[in-house]
């Protein structure tokens, strides 16, 4: 007679343990299994959050750990919200966030739509297109610094080739008006393939029979695109926007290596600004308040967005 794996485990369990386990309710067993996870979450998520809130109400500096701690109430919050430099940093982040998402969604969807068509070399092109997102952001930041170099950089020469402008007459990462676009270009180059893959998954999830039914009803390709393709891919697109939005809100590595936040503070995104406050100026209390403000912003925006996403999925 053969036994199932569960039965074999049951037989192998020593009688003492088995009897103790039999005495536990389902609820107790559930708690036993869930408790380590909850403990871990409390330790690495909730406790640091509560501690950060506490620090944000003080003048604590991590490099002066022995100094007397002074409660400053909401002074750190009011200083941040009335600091013009912080708002400039927020603006730089908004510019980066909006333009990268717009470009990545537009180009990513277009590429997915093209790749979804059956043609020779389809897989090869997919592989080539997704290569940039497999690179380390540090590597990308470094080599785009060279590509943008006015005297030897390929980017300037390409622009010069098409426009006739002297390649050494402009500096993508040194010019105040061009630098914000330089980081948008690099992020778009790197992460458009990610949006493309999500869109491709969406496109491939649409059953052919829907298009066949539309064709029988004499719907034009344009009509099919707007009434079938776009609505059915929309949840996927929104998911891509959510992922890219969260990622780019906390963008640090690539931009640090590419521009260092400069020229001046033109590309100093909030995460770079926060890092400077926390780990270069060592204003721990102040930067804790800053982090809490950013957390509430991202959490609030993401919650609203997820609700909208759920509504779209339910349609």
């Amino acid at each position, binding site marked *: 007679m053969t036994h199932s794996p569960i039965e074999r485990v049951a037989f192998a369990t020593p009688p003492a343990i088995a009897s103790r386990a039999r005495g536990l309710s389902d609820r107790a067993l559930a708690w036993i299994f869930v408790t380590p996870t909850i403990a871990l979450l409390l330790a690495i998520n909730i406790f640091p959050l509560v501690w950060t809130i506490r620090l944000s109400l003080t*003048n604590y500096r*991590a*490099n*002066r*750990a*022995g100094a007397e701690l002074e409660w400053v109430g909401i002074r750190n919050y009011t200083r941040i919200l009335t600091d013009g*430099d912080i708002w400039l940093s927020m603006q730089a982040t908004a510019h980066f966030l909006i333009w990268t998402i717009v470009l990545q969604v537009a180009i990513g969807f277009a590429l997915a739509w093209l790749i979804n068509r059956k043609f020779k070399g389809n897989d090869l092109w997919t592989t080539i297109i997704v290569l940039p997102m497999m690179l380390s952001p540090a590597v990308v930041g470094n080599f785009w610094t060279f590509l*943008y*170099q*006015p*005297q030897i*950089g390929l980017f300037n020469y390409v622009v010069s080739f098409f426009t006739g402008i002297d390649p*050494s*007459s402009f*500096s993508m*990462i*040194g010019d*105040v008006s061009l630098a914000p676009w330089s980081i948008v270009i690099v992020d778009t180059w790197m992460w458009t393939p990610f949006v493309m893959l999500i869109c491709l998954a969406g496109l491939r999830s649409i059953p052919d029979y829907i298009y066949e039914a539309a064709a029988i009803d004499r719907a034009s390709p344009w009509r099919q695109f707007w009434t079938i393709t776009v609505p059915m891919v929309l949840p996927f697109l929104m998911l891509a926007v959510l992922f890219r939005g969260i990622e780019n809100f906390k963008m640090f590595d690539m931009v*640090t290596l590419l*521009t*260092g*936040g*400069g*020229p*001046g*503070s*033109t590309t100093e995104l909030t995460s770079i600004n926060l890092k*400077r406050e926390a*780990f*270069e*100026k*060592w*204003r721990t209390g102040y930067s804790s308040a800053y982090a809490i403000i950013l957390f509430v912003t991202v959490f609030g925006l993401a919650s609203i967005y997820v609700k909208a996403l759920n509504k779209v999925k339910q349609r």
Partner: protein
Amino acid sequence: MKRAHLAAVAAISITAALSANSAQAEDLTLCWASWDPANALVELSKDFEAQSGHKMSFEFVPWPNFADRMLNELNSGGQLCDLMIGDSQWIGGAAENGWYVKLNDFFDANGIKMDDFIDATVTGYAEWPKNTPNYWALPAFGDVVGWTYRKDWFERPEIQTAFKEKYGRDLAVPKTFAELKDIAEFFQKREVDGKTVYGASIYTERGSEGITMGAMDVLYSFGFKYENPDKPYDMEGYVNGPGAVAGLEYYKALYDCCVAPGTSNTYMSEGIDAFKSGQVALQMNFAFTWPGFETDMDVGRGKTGYFANPAGPDGDQFAQLGGQGISVVAASTKQDAALEYIKWFAQPDVQAKWWSMGGFSCLKAVTLAPDFPQSQPYAQTFLDSMAIVKDFWAEPSYATLLQDTQKRFHDYVVAGQGTAQEALDGLVADWTETFEDEGKL
């Protein structure tokens, strides 16, 4: 009697065991920035290993991350480093936060006198509070911002003629900052050996300390002062006085007219590259870079000249101090062996060898020796520069003060936002806020 004998034997045994323990070979780790002098120190330290039996390990971090990495290490009480060659600006924080061991007693016990070292390096690298006999480091590596120029280009008759035609004077090492700008403008986009060259390489780096070191190097000679000499932390009119404003305007004008394209974020290594590749005629850089030019195939063998910071409009002449002192880390469990290293390093013959290997000794016995100025083509410039140094704040809050300066200077000089007056007024406001937070105002 027998009991007394036994006690004596036991005491001798314990003493012997303890002394054996103290003389035990240790594995010491020395932390410093990752640069050429560090490689020279590795070589030099082999003598210490041979003499002492201790083993030396090294932890070198590239300059842009050096302060972040090492200040974190010190602040967290980490035991990675037994010896630290830390930047001069760290000394206030290191002393007040108890990161370094105070060395006064050790110096007294071992006959090490601070009078034997270049005065500016003692004040800059070892003392806290400044100008008091409280020593936290031994001056280890003297450094200062100075200038290199393409001596071979300056000596060419056709270039000399063209310069004289344009400016009505001979092309020579600049004595004032105004002359320096003329020279930089003259070379900007000039064809030399069929190649377009540029005027100057100056510091513009945003992330760590670059643009502050560069701009301050100029501002001092234009009249910038950190504070009222009679009233500490009173900065109004000193940091943002007319001279300081003129100095910052000059630095921006130099950046706008005379640097190579794409140099909006450059510091020491980029300056070295620009000079070695024949891209620029003049280069601002710390003295530690100079030995490397002498041995370079393209700019060595007499092609490079050196000069100290020129004078400002009123004849004032100052330069930005660099360099570091060597300290014993308070969290180290091998302090005795670390102190042994410092005692060895302070010896005149070791310091002489240090200089010969490319390390910039701060010991007067080395730098004031009669043959010192002739020992290297840059030796006299080093001496001249070290005589006119000033340094950035060394307060415990130096990092905050530095980052505020980086932002204000980069916003104005590189990004062209606002005026010099606004930048310096903003800096006074930032620094005032920091000192108020620190309870110093």
